[in-house]
């Protein structure tokens, strides 16, 4: 077992454990904090995959913005729902069953796939993934149109969010 595999296993178990805490812990502020731990584990996964830009964006956008947004939302809505009462609905066993079935189905599907034991591609010499990504995002023959559509979607969603959450009183 090489060093990379040991690092992968440690990060994977940490991430999955904090993911389980996100969906099971009673206090929602704690759940949001466990979500930050999970997102950080996923950022380490991106770093292990040599996707450096994604790792940085994961920390800045997810941990810096989305997780903080969650903590604000929990604090704005936590009056009666904090620690008392069941946190899981009546059909939680069905959800658990369905997620176990989903995982075993994906697992079985992966076992029958031929590309399962692929080794990582070697980077071509003088290839910089961040430069290639930046060029692809603004080049007209690549992905400039989906990129612009995504930014318009984000603006529309944020304007809509301000409108929906605005307090008229």
């Amino acid at each position, binding site marked *: 077992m090489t060093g990379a595999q040991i690092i*992968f296993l440690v990060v994977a178990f940490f991430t999955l454990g904090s993911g389980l805490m996100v969906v099971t812990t009673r206090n929602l502020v704690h759940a949001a904090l466990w979500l930050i731990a999970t997102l950080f584990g996923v950022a380490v996964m991106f770093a292990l995959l040599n996707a450096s830009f994604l790792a940085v964006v994961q920390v800045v956008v997810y941990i810096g913005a989305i997780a903080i947004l969650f903590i604000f939302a929990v604090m704005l809505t936590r009056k009666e*729902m904090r620690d008392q009462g069941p946190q899981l609905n009546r059909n939680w066993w069905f959800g658990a069953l369905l997620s176990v079935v989903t995982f075993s189905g994906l697992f079985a599907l992966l076992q029958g796939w031929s590309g399962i034991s692929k080794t990582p591609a070697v980077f071509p010499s003088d290839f910089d993934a961040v430069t290639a990504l930046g060029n692809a995002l603004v080049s007209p023959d690549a992905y400039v149109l989906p990129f612009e559509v995504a930014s318009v979607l984000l603006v529309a*969603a944020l304007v809509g969010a301000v409108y929906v959450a605005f307090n008229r009183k």
Partner: protein
Amino acid sequence: MVPLSWYLIFSAALFSIGLFGVLSRRNAVAILLGVELMLNSVNVNLAAFWRYGDVADIAGQVFAIIVFAVAAAEVSVGLALVISVYRRRNTVIADDLDMMKF
């Protein structure tokens, strides 16, 4: 090196955990937390397929960035809806929001 299957199994497990959260939590904010876990597992998959496929073809990372943008849009609108509902109905429990139920 780490085989591709480890990343795929990891992201399948993270997706299933998020699915459990979405299906079984009562609080609407907790349901959105589960959705975030699912979106993150998809991003791990996209990055892994980029790394283990053709590295020069950057499509996997571009797709992951689009997923980031859509996730940010989804969570901002979702939390705005939750806060708006909480102001009007004084609850964030998904079971109680049944006024459109026939």
